[in-house]
């Protein structure tokens, strides 16, 4: 009996020890490498950003960041996976607006709901920009609209993915300008570039970051921001040319739904610090990325706002 009691105490002590150990493990987050899942092609915006963040994140969080890819379905593959991943903060995933809002609106089997993705933060934006090849006879947005009016249904615009900011933006601009261009989706914005350079599409509704990489091979007609960007002082906004069209993609990271708030906050702080590093800022802005920051709380409101916007847009526009 005595032996049994001693045994019981030892077992109990072990549980307590284990408990404290687990607690300590929680406190010490992150204690092992974090997997940063990218839902788009390597070499695309999300990938380039993640790779630029990686060394700073590693320094701030004190652990290795492993970048992996889950590509397909305009990101849905990665996101339907992240909602089922272990909510321990060791799997984080890049996610984008409008994709995470529009996909569940558009189809049933996405495998995730917008509310399933727990946003850590939104850290950057890439506005839409309309470009044509440098040797195109179309010199201005006016030329473009005129050409599209003269040739209805014959102007092809490439862009990244279906139901993306590029896609919806094209549809939105079509309506505002009273034209009908054909949008051709590619798997990733980098994928659309050879189609433009090879003359297979007439223009691209792409992101600022793509334009900046191919500045000497493309001509920008207009940018879908409120004000001109300091990076492209010569590129007019759609707004100043008379089209109330502001559109772009936002990038951020999310975690599986039940991830504890402390971990989310810790990650958000880390990403915020990365954004504030002057060297990182310079690198990103040189690549055409606009740095913004919405923390975990602000993100909720931001997503609500954008959801309302896209809902009204989707109901207004018949997307073929």
């Amino acid at each position, binding site marked *: 009996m005595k032996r049994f009691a001693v045994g019981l105490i030892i077992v109990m002590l072990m549980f307590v020890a284990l408990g404290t150990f687990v607690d300590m493990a929680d406190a010490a987050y992150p204690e092992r490498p974090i997997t940063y899942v990218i839902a788009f092609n390597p070499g695309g915006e999300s990938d380039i950003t993640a790779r630029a963040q990686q060394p700073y994140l590693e320094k701030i969080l004190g652990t290795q960041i492993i970048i992996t890819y889950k590509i397909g*379905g305009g990101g849905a593959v990665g996101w339907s996976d992240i909602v089922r991943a272990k909510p321990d903060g060791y799997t984080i995933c890049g996610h984008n607006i409008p994709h995470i809002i529009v996909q569940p609106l*558009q189809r049933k089997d996405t495998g995730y709901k917008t509310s399933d993705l727990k946003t850590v933060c939104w850290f950057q934006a890439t506005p839409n920009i309309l470009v044509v090849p440098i040797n195109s006879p179309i010199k201005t947005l006016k030329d473009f609209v005129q050409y599209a009016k003269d040739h209805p249904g014959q102007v092809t615009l490439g862009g990244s993915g*279906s139901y993306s900011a590029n896609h919806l933006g094209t549809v939105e601009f079509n309506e505002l300008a009273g034209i009908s261009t*054909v949008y051709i*989706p590619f*798997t990733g914005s980098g*994928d659309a*570039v050879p189609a433009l350079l090879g003359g297979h599409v007439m223009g691209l509704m792409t992101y600022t970051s793509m334009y900046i990489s191919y500045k000497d091979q493309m001509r920008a007609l207009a940018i879908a921001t409120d004000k001109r960007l300091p990076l492209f002082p010569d590129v007019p906004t759609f707004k100043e040319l008379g089209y109330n069209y502001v559109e772009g993609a936002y990038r951020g990271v999310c975690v599986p739904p039940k991830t504890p708030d402390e971990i989310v906050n810790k990650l958000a702080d880390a990403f915020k610090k990365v954004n504030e590093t002057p060297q990182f800022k310079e690198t990103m802005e040189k690549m055409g990325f606009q740095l913004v920051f919405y923390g975990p709380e602000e993100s909720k409101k931001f997503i609500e706002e954008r959801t309302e916007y896209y809902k009204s847009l989707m109901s207004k526009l018949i997307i073929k």
Partner: protein
Amino acid sequence: MEIFFQAFLNVLSPKNLLAMILLIPLGMMAGALPGFTATMAVSILVPFTFVMDPIMGLISVSAVYCSAIYGGAFPAILINTPGTPSSIATCFDGYPMAQQGRAQEALFTIAFASLVGGFIGTVGLIAFSLPLAKIALKFGPPEYFWVSIFGLTIIAGLSGDSLLKGVAGGVLGLLISTIGIAPVGGDVRFTFGISSFQGGVELISILIGFFCIPEVLKMARNPLSSYLKETQDIAKNEGYKSVLLKGFHNAFANITNLVRSSIIGLFVGILPGAGGNIANLIAYSEAKRASKNPESFGKGNPQGIVATESADKGTIMGSFVPLLTLGVPGSPVAAVVYGALMIQGLNPGPELFTKHADITYTFMMSFFVAMALTVLIGMFAGMLFYQVIMRTPIRVLVPAILLLTIVGSYAVRNNYMDVVFMLGSGFLGYVLANLGFSPGPIVLGLVLGPIAEKGLVQGYLMGNSVSPSMPWVIFFTRPISIVLIIISIISALWPLYAARRRRRAV
């Protein structure tokens, strides 16, 4: 000329040579493990290159890329499992050679074939980058559609005895490739309500299943025999020197095959979206087609592995042509390097040849040096790999390989569904193999399906803008498309012609 000389000296600086020699075994190991690809190896490397100077960083990339692709041939020859998708067709003749006790000969043969593939690839990259990139840009969605159709016509060359079974296998592969979310349009297909199916099937886990599992099951049926006992180790009896000479002879016996395969590799590599997985299959089928005794392929004809292993080395350099000239990545690895270049402050594109010419030419030159070092190290690594597998008794080897297949198929995307697919296709592969189906056509359909679909849908949308009443016309009016159609027709009719020729000969 001076700049080339300087570039060459840069590559050969002791520091850079040392980096390459240290990284090559690691890359080779990644390539040799099924499930760990060259893309993964380079992705892991890239963050480390940020702290290096640009030249050393890029040289490290070429060392890891070349060695990972090289390492993929080891398991293809020794256990009938392609280590990377670039060595799929290496199994077809490499493994029969190993079964005949000629594994060492095969390993030496691929060394020489790789060296030539790497050399031709590097020359193509340095000398013809700009014109080649211009050709690649001419390939739009309709052309990609026809390229994949041409790819499908080589089924005959991969289907073994029955053409009908080959075609059936190809269709099965195409069907499997449509599982998941559509590449264009984003519709969800054939997921049967299971959300894990959304990701579609991963080529690598299917490869492991189809190639490796049936072989392991076969081994397990004779648990007492060992790999060594079943086959005679010819290398031991004849001495390594004579086997090395044999390998050399195999590689250079048919120079046309060697050069043709390398050029096929270079060209396929240049096309963004098509890579070593397609190049090695096409090179294999062309080698078989051109051969006087096509029946000997699939039964241990060294020309088969010469073709595949020179072609997949050519794609390495080819995939950097559009990246360096236009800033368009030609392969997943090139895409990873694109990100690395951007972060180093090197804007991929024409600027690389003016402002940063020294770095660019050094990078190009480093491919051949990396390949030469890879071949040198690879000869010994292959020997070691072979000895380990040969000396391991079957009762240890079978569970060890099975464990690796599970780890490997999981590792590709960290997705347990891939393990399920791997085991499922392994079982299917075993049944189909006993029914006389070869895995080649199935895998071909799986590789080409998404490319064909993307080309078809995007081309249709393009056609719609040209003439809404007849959107299909665009597939038949563009010059390169017409050439591709003619090549496809010739290729599709070839088996009939070959059969007739054979009948006449008899």
